[in-house]
Structure formats: C-alpha cells, structure tokens
C-alpha cells in the first residue's frame, strides 16, 4: 500500500476537499474500471467528478478503479483503436525545460483507417524533471492538466497508470487521477473554491499530482496517461495547435500558482 506523507497545511486542505466531495455525493466507491462520462454542463458551475481523491493524510487507494483503465487505446484494455498521431514537446517555464509532454491521438478503426464512427481518444501524459525554474530552486509541480475538447459533445474520461519501465508508453505513475471535470479552473483556483468550479465545456480538467521532487515527500515524475474520448465528425487537426493544453502548478505545498499554455492535438 502506498502511503504518501504530507504537510499540515496540505492536511487541512485535503480534509476540506474530502468533506466537500462526500457532501456533494460525487465520490464513487464502486469497482468501476472504465471511462466516466462528462456530459455537456448547462449550469455556470460544475462539481468535479472524483476518480481517486487523496484522503486526509494525502494517500490514495491503490485498488480504487473509478476512471481507471489498464492499458492504452489499442490494447486489450481499450480494443479497436489505432494510433494516428504522436508527438513530444518540451515543457518550458520561464525559459527552463521542466519536463516533457507526450500527446497522442487514436481512433476507432483498422489498419491505418479510422472507421465511420469518428470516435477519437486524445491522450496526454507528462514527465517532469527536477530543474529549478524560479528563484526558490524548487522543481515545477503540475497539479492540473487541462485539455481543449469539443464543447458541444459529451466526453468520456479515463486514466492509465502505466506498468513498468522507462518508456512513455508504460513508465509507471505513482499518483492517481484525483478529479476530472469540464472546467478551466484547477487546484485553489480561485482560492477556497474546493471542488466547485466555473463550467467551461471546451476544456477537460485532469487533477493529478506530478512532481519529480515533491515537497510532500511523494515523488511522481510521470503523470498517468490522461485520456478523453469524443466523437469528432470533422476529425482532428494533425498539426498541434497552440494554447490547447494548460498545465498548472496550483500551490499544493505553497508553491506560487503558475500556469502555462502549450500546443496540443485538438478535434476539429
């Protein structure tokens, strides 16, 4: 069992978040192992969907299967998909390389041809290093990844933790996906907002703590693969578009909130 240490400040914040999640009834303890659906939200606010949230001491369940899949698209876990695009890009903060973004697109199809369902999965994961990016000397932490999606279509979200090794396909993440939702607001954004965020149907949020040198004592330089599935009748843009993934350090251990937008694949 994985036990993650945390700071007193983090302890208080987690207690508040867990209480809010339980009160909102969004915490599922069922043994689901599949995509969870994020429908188009009609209201101005939305409550994040819990996948594997941290408890009061910062630990996560190693067995909770909500939102979790056991392989990438095209594997036995998610059969029927073919790889269409793949890219890597340096993550640059204040001119410093703090890690790498892996971005891929799969579609339902065979051989090299997508079928007529126009079903696509866009997947991303991050690998961070310990480079200091600001005068504090600390490494950059990513608490939230936001991905641009089709705003008028339902979206299914899942995550894959990897297994073993050092390749982007299978390198293991050590912290699970905590929450997801259709918003462009992340941890502590705005301050005190908890799990209730301003709705933004054009973005899928993935909350996962990724840091190569985490002040909370639990390092996870690899994030999980964060997958979002949608029907894209006009396909996707084979050239990564600027400002389509947002990465944010939310200040979980008091770091300065810092966000950046970077290029990514996006459905047309």
């Amino acid at each position, binding site marked *: 069992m994985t036990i993650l240490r945390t700071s007193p400040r983090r302890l208080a914040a987690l207690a508040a978040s867990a209480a809010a999640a339980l009160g909102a009834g969004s915490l599922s303890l069922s043994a689901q192992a599949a995509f969870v659906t994020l429908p188009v939200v009609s209201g101005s606010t939305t409550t994040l969907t819990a996948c594997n949230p941290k408890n009061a001491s910062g630990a996560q369940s190693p067995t909770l299967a909500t939102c979790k899949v056991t392989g990438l698209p095209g594997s036995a876990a998610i059969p029927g998909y073919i790889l269409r695009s793949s890219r*890597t890009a340096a993550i640059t*903060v204040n*001119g*410093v390389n703090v890690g790498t973004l*892996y971005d891929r*697109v799969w579609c339902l199809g065979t051989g090299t041809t*997508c079928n007529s369902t126009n079903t696509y999965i866009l997947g991303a994961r991050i690998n961070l290093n310990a480079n200091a990016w600001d005068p504090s000397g600390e490494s950059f932490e990513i608490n939230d990844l936001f991905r641009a999606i089709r705003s008028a279509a339902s979206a299914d979200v899942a995550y894959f933790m990897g297994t073993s090794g050092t390749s982007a396909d299978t390198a293991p993440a050590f912290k699970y996906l905590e929450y997801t939702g259709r918003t462009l607001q992340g941890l502590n954004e705005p301050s005190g907002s908890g799990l209730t965020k301003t709705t933004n149907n054009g973005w899928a949020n993935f909350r996962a703590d990724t840091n190569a040198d985490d002040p909370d004592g639990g390092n996870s330089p690899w994030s999980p693969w964060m997958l979002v599935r949608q029907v894209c009748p006009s396909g996707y843009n084979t*050239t990564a578009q600027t400002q389509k993934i947002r990465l944010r350090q939310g200040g979980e251990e008091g770091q300065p*909130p810092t966000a950046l*937008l970077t290029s990514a694949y996006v459905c047309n």
Partner: protein
Amino acid sequence: MARVIDVRDGRPSGAAHWAMVAAAVLVAAVIGIGLARGLAGPPATEAPAAGQAPAAPAAKPAPTKPPPVLPARTVLVDAAPADAEAALVDCRAPMQALTLALGPGAPLTVCAGATQVRQMGSMRSYLAQDGGRQWVLQVDTAGGEVLRVALQGRDGRAYACEGSDCAGVTLGRHDARGTRQVTLRSVALRAGGVTAEIGAEAASSAEARGPTASTGTAGAGTADAARAMVSARLAVGADDQLPGLACTGPTVAISAPDGASQKFCGQGGAGFDIADDGTRTYQFQDFEGRTLAVKLDAQHVITRVSYGPYACEGTACTGASMSAAEPDNDAAERSFFFGRTTLFEAGGSSKRAGLQLNGSLVLQGQP
C-alpha cells in the same frame, strides 16, 4: 517655464546696461514661446457643424528662428508631473524609446533597456522596462499571433488589449543575423478592462479567472484617461543568443534570398501522423509554432517538404533524405537531412525559390 538668461557679468553703465537687460528679456521670451508651441502640438480645429464641409486647416505659423546664443542640442525642459506635458527624451542606443500617450496630455517618451524574451509553454513574451523602472511593456505572442499587449506602471496604472483588439502590432521577419523587431504603432490599450497582470500567472488563460474583471487601478488622481496609446520598436536578439532558447542539438538553417535567416530545431515539439492511406507526415515545431513538415508515401519515400507557405514536392526536394524506418515501429527515432533543399513559394511546383534548408533534425523515439 522658460529660464531667464542672466547676461550680467559686470555692470555696464547707463543706457547700455538697460539695453542689454531688455535684450536678455526679449531673448528669453522668444525661447519660451517657441518651446510652448513645440510641446502643444498643432492647433486643434473645431469639428464642423452637421452638413458643413470641414474647415480648411489653419496656416502654419512661420518657424521661429532660434537665437544664435543657444547651443545646437536637445533642450530638456524642467520636468512636469508625469501626466502633464511630456519631456523631450533622446534615447541613445542600446536604449529603446517607448512612446506612451496616457490621458489627455502630450505623449510621454521613456527609454527602455534591451528587450527581454520569456518563453512559457507555447507563449513567447517580449518585455521592455524603462531605466527608471516606472513602466513595463509586455507583448505576448503564440503561433506568430499577438495574444495580448500590456502596460503596467509602478504607480499602479495598468492598460491592456487582447487578441484582435491589439491592432498595430507587427512581428517582423528575422534578418540575416536572426534578429527581428516587434513594432507597435499607436496600439490602443484599455485601462483596467483586461487584466494587465505581469508575473507568474500572466501566461494562464483569462478564462480560468472567470468573467473578465477589472484588476487595474484607476491610477493616481482623476486625470487618467480610459485608455493609453503605445508606440515602440523593440529589437529582439536571435534565438541562439537568448538564454534557454538556443538550439542545442541538430539544427536546420533556414535562409531566404534576401539574406534573412534563422536556426530551426523544433524545440516546440515533434511528432508524426498517419493518414488513412498509410502515408506519414513528420512535423517539427519551434517555440513560436512554425512547423517544418516532411511527408512520406507508403513506401517511406519523401514526397513533400514544407515550412509555412513554402514547399517542395517530389523530385524537386533535392538534398532531402532521412534515416531508414524501423520495421513496424512508427514511433522509432528517425533522422532527417537537408542539403541545400530549396522550398518554393506558394506551392511546390512553382519555380520561384523562397527558402533554402541546410542541416538535420532528429525525431526522438516516441514510446
């Protein structure tokens, strides 16, 4: 206020004395009138009444001949409050002039130091700060487009524009040394209408902060106008001279017939895509979103090389080659080589040469 020049160095007697005093007063008055006219700008004309043609512009007054006692140099007038008449400032290289029109008064010109370049994700920002640290000008760009222009004063005044509202900004081409200019021509900024926050969160999308809120202050006093106008010409060094942005690995030199050149190494990302017909396209992007693409047919033969609007096709792509593909592994590492490969303007079949590529790129293994 004009200074009275005291020409007394002794005590001439009688009429000669008073004649000299009178001459000095007359000279001072002429100087004062000339300076006041120069600062006030052209005389305003009343708007014509409805249905009437505009009045003819008033004839310009005859220029005042400067008195011979004044040295031929820029005159610095006693400084007035910052939001009143502007000082005439001569920015000597390497300082750069920023002309700021703030409120109803005359424009203020400040001298800024070298342009700083900051890269956050796919956003590149150009910053200029005046030597007195009173003003910071920031221009945010991505993919070759202007995202935002912000001006922030040390006294709390803040102005900004976003996207298409930022008319008048031009990102110049790189010259033979790889340098370029970012030009702002009377760019209109709104006070407090868009956050002009400059700092750690400046790179995040405005949407994350919810409905646009005014975060700029009204500024000191009641004289601040609702907007500012900014003009500047910022010199930007070549990327390989900028900390953290230089190419450190395989690089392609891209040169144009007019001598403009830049180094390209795809630091912004690299990857491939597979089309329905099995053809592959490998793409490399730089930090500013420019893309160099190499397209292969199903037999892994190069069929097209493109960079923006320039391309070559088929046998016209002379000098372009690549390492062998790894069987059944599209994601394997692959190298691309360019030896005086010429790209043509407006399509690959045109004979009008546009760019020449020399160098190599490596697509790192994707898995």
